[in-house]
């Protein structure tokens, strides 16, 4: 029994290292300073830490702007996904209505398709509407990716809140709206926040649609992809690190809800 436990623990440690070491190494690469760039063989433990490379990278024309646009797009995507997803999820959870299944099938269908690819034909229409190469345009496309997820997760969030709580609120003087505001939303709040953060992460990480729908006003991912072929490795690593840091932080914030969310969203 103890040997088996030992083997399990060893496996756990190895797998943790498997996740963490590569992140540590790209960080070491990006933060190692000028000396590290040309160094070979590379020291496995960096001899010095400096933000020089990162600072130089951020000073490059367009990088700071890309970072800002990424943020803008992700926030818009988050707002849209929650604003559209919560009511729809509530309706799916609380009402049985004709056509509910059509909507469900539509949501599930988005799962069978690589939705990002659908950005391809949108360029023409977006140019016509003035949405091409704007944060709003990219955010709309990203919302198409994040919204099905937001709908499914919020539907299950609301389903987990007993209908009787809402009925009690109605009986004790609430309108439908005030019951939703005073009773349902406070109880669903942690899950809603987690859903919002996930929408942010989905958008922050998206590469294809962001690249296709923009030319000059690129998100960080689109920018990095565009300069892959002709920028020094160190800057690429600095960019990679910038991509990773917020995501890791957000995953930490939503870690309690991860399982509920993905367990539900993938039923």
């Amino acid at each position, binding site marked *: 029994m103890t040997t088996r436990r030992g083997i399990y623990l060893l496996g756990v440690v190895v797998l943790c290292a498997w996740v963490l070491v590569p992140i540590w190494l790209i960080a070491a690469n990006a933060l190692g300073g000028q000396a590290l760039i040309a160094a070979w063989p590379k020291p496995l433990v960096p001899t010095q830490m400096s933000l020089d490379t990162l600072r130089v990278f951020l000073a490059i024309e367009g990088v700071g702007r890309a970072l800002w646009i990424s943020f803008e797009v992700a926030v818009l995507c988050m707002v849209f996904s929650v604003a559209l997803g919560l009511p729809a999820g509530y309706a799916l959870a609380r009402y049985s209505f004709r056509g509910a299944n059509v909507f469900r099938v539509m949501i599930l269908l988005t799962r069978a398709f690589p939705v990002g690819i659908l950005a391809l034909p949108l360029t023409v229409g977006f140019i016509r509407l003035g949405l091409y190469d704007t944060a709003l345009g990219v955010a709309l496309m990203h919302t198409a990716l994040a919204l099905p997820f937001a709908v499914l997760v919020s539907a299950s969030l609301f389903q987990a809140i007993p209908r009787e709580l809402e009925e009690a609120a109605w*009986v*004790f003087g609430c309108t439908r709206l005030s019951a939703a505001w005073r009773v349902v939303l406070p109880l669903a709040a942690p899950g809603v926040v987690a859903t919002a953060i996930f929408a942010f992460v989905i958008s922050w990480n998206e590469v294809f649609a962001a690249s296709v729908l923009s030319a000059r006003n690129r998100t960080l991912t689109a920018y990095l992809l565009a300069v892959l072929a002709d920028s020094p490795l160190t800057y690429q690593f600095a960019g990679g690190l910038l991509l990773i840091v917020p995501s890791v932080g957000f995953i930490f914030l939503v870690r309690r809800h991860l399982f509920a969310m993905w367990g539900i969203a993938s039923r």
Partner: protein
Amino acid sequence: MAGIVIDGISKAFGNTVALAALDLAVADREFVALLGPSGCGKTTLLRIIAGLETATTGRVLIGGRDVTNLPPRARGLAMVFQNYAVFPHLRVCDNIAFGLKMARAERTRIDRQVARTAELLQLAPYLDRYPAQLSGGQRQRVAVARALAVEPALLLMDEPLSNLDALLRLDMRAELKDVLREAGTTTIYVTHDQTEAMALADRIAVLHGGRIEQIGSPSAIYHSPATRFVGSFVGSPPMNFLRADAGRLMGIRPEDIDLVDAGAGLPFRVSVVEPLGAQTLLTGTTDGQVVRVALPGEHVIAAGATLFLRPRPDRIRWMDAATGNALAQAAG
């Protein structure tokens, strides 16, 4: 305080009829229990009165006012839910004050009512706690306190004790009766537990298949069931129904049967003996029909014995075998 009139309420879910044109009048300050098995429509009726469900036809009047088309909040009633529905994100005091706050009551009135109902239901020490920090029985009290705090014209209770364990349920039942008597609120109480209905109600309405089978005092329901269903649903063990002459059934309660000397009554072959302490319960056959007999106290009787039974004549309830309805009792 107000009387209630249910006027021809029916409810259909698609093709299934949950309630069939039901009439019921509840007097001011009266406590009426809706009793019936699951699926009889009792909860649906309660929810229609609350405004949580819309009736297919009919009207609901509370205190003479037609509330049929009003949302729940405008009906002036309060409700205790089966799973309590105590708001988990609010402290006990905020739960109790919820209805009054929604009605924009004055601060002083809210404070007074919260203090009064908390006192009444022994919740004063727990006012600052969250429901998750309370036991099931305490949460139940919060639900009742929240309902009483608004001083409703009508109090609706949907199986409020069914989630409590057996011992606690007995305690709460007595306590509830005491509290509600003091409050004097008109109450409609849904339950599937006949002892609960008998213990609490002024009148019981027995529902079956979306209809009211009988409405009357607990004693009338128990001793003079209007239908075979009522006789077999109310009482544990249920009433015996034995085939008699001319398409009649003889209804007799197990405790209304006496043992008599050999040859002086119906021969009864005992198959099972259950000594329950206060009673000894016998199951056996008479003339090929299963009969249950409840004898007071403890008796030493062996399974397989043959005894002789005599129903008390004044307790016999004659029924029409075909319709299941009680016959004019003069025939007995």
